[in-house]
């Protein structure tokens, strides 16, 4: 039995369909993140759950009650907006209790609820201030307070961290995660930031072009992306996608690429040859994450398939904790991640270890992953 059920939901503006037959079941206590590039339909979907946009067809149900046509304030949901949407003319306290007031909650109960939330979020000293006098992080807390005070069935977050600076964003991310763990609430969270999606969620729905591309746990999404879009979108720096040719020898399968000189390199694949039947000699897209291309000392000792090669380093980008390198394979830039103190310089011919355990291959036509 699902807590929030999105069943075959479609959104059309006139003749244009922007969201195509979306199905998601969210369990109680789950933290679902909708992630995708702008215009992918994630905010539209969130707004339909909130009741701010009409559902063209399909059903959205909360606790088995269909919500189509139900007024937003009657769905027992709360939302944290991207701009926080704090009422500028009301104090923080008023902002938090406005919804309760609208629902006819008596003043004593409102104040009690406000105190509780203010304690939890440590915004007690701010209650008499106006939103204009608050910092970005404080506004964010107030916006969450306004949502929490309603004690809703589902929390909706619409890119709540995108207006904060980088450092604060990381802090607030942790804060939100703590809150979720403590309260066990059900959350639907929209973001375009794949790191937020990975770190916060219990499940991720990657969206593009109005379709759910993949729905799964962060690990599933990262390790076994359904298609090239998901592979490229999730992870930073993003996955290297190389044109490769399949070579099958007995039970073993390998992908053949070329190094910076154009000399062929054979990379054994973690897949059995049987799953690639009929593809011997055909072209595929080989996906290797940057952290799988390292200096030999930095290579994962527990990895089963590691290939050593030498390649020319074009650019090095020391990032403090790691050093990212750019090198050329199959005529394309490839990013690798080395230890911070690996001795590499641009122009060097360096030894590289390629960990093929988590390599994935995609069909170049359908762009789907070959299992």
């Amino acid at each position, binding site marked *: 039995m699902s807590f929030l059920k999105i069943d075959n939901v479609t959104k059309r503006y006139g003749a244009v369909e922007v969201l195509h037959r979306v199905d998601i079941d969210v369990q109680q206590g789950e933290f679902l993140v909708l992630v995708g590039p702008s215009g992918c339909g994630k905010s539209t979907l969130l707004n339909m759950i909130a009741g701010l946009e009409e*559902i063209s067809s399909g*059903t959205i*149900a909360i606790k088995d*009650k269909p919500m189509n*046509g*139900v007024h937003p304030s009657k769905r027992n949901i709360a939302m944290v907006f991207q701009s926080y949407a704090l009422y500028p003319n009301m104090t923080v306290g008023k902002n938090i209790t406005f919804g309760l007031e609208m629902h006819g909650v008596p003043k004593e109960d409102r104040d009690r609820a406000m105190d509780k939330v203010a304690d939890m979020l440590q915004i007690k000293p701010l209650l008499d201030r106006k939103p204009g006098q608050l910092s970005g992080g404080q506004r964010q807390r107030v916006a969450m307070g306004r949502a929490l005070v309603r004690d809703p069935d589902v929390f909706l977050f619409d890119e709540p961290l995108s207006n904060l600076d980088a450092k604060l964003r990381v802090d607030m991310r942790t804060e939100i995660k703590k809150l979720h763990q403590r309260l066990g609430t059900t959350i639907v969270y929209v973001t375009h930031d794949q790191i937020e999606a990975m770190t916060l969620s219990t499940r991720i729905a990657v969206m593009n072009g109005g379709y759910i591309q993949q729905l799964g746990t962060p690990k599933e999404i990262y390790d076994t992306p359904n298609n090239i879009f998901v592979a490229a979108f999730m992870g930073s720096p993003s996955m290297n996608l190389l044109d490769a040719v399949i070579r099958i020898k007995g039970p073993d399968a390998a992908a053949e690429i070329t190094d910076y000189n154009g000399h062929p390199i054979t990379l054994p694949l973690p897949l059995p040859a049987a799953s690639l039947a009929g593809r011997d000699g055909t072209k595929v897209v080989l996906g290797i994450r940057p952290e799988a291309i390292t200096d030999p000392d930095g290579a994962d000792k527990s990895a089963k398939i590691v290939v050593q090669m030498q390649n020319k380093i074009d650019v090095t980008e020391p990032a403090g904790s790691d050093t990212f390198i750019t090198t050329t394979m199959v005529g394309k830039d490839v990013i690798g991640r080395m230890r911070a103190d690996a001795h590499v310089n641009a122009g060097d011919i360096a030894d590289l270890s390629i960990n093929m355990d988590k390599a994935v291959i995609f069909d170049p036509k359908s762009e789907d992953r070959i299992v």
Partner: protein
Amino acid sequence: MASAPAQADFKTRLQNLIPKLVLAPSLAVIFLFVYGFIIFTGYLSFTDSRILPSFNLVGFENYSKLFRLSHWTTSITNLAIFASLYIGISTLIGLSLATFLDQKIRGEGLLRPIYLYPMALSFIVTGTAWKWLLDPGIGLEHTMHLWGWTSFHFDWIKNSDYAIYTVVIAAVWQSSGFVMAMFLAGLRGIDNEILKAAQMDGAGNWQMYRRIILPQLRPAFLSAFVILSHLAVKSYDLVIALTGGGPGRATELPATFMYSYTFTRNQMGIGASSAVIMLMTIAAIMVPYLYAELREKK
């Protein structure tokens, strides 16, 4: 299991209806009093209405009569002279004032409101002031004579060949400050970095002004043109107060023509047809402008 979509509850349906109910009275009034009336007047322009509306259709007779009336051709010739000078001079003065005022002028805060205050006055007040100032017997000419410049001659307002230019003077006095405000806002909206870049590229003052600044004022030019031209076509009060259309018919404009034919000469059909021509003139300017403005916003 959630099945068929539930019907919208009462509150939601009401909430969806209220906005339209709120808008409805205004729309009803606009449709009746603006578009309904336009249709009505348009219809009258094809009838033989005289002192009272008649519904007897006579085709384009009023229009062909209209354009044979020397009174009307005088009016539209006057409008052409008035409008082009009014728009041209107001733009020129407005642009110069704005440009010079933008040179880090001390006392700008004092000068700006002085240039603009005539816009707050009624055209009737403007007309009263200028009527007297331009009166040769008592105004400017008289004063110059008293000051000893006895050959000074300025009696345009009494001269049917020149009277229309006095309307231009008074109208420019009233509106050019407004044009200044539009251009000044345009100048202040120009990105400073572009100007710095142009300076680095070695553009001199004049080149900078002509090649960088003026082209960026295009929206202000367009707005000024549209506003001034619609004011010009609608000009009525000023002529009434300043010259009453005279001397003779020297300063008649379509607006005064329409009024006198409809209400004093009892030629309602012809009056209506002149109003239709005025509307079409303004629509030719306003409709594309509004269309572009509203489309951009989307």
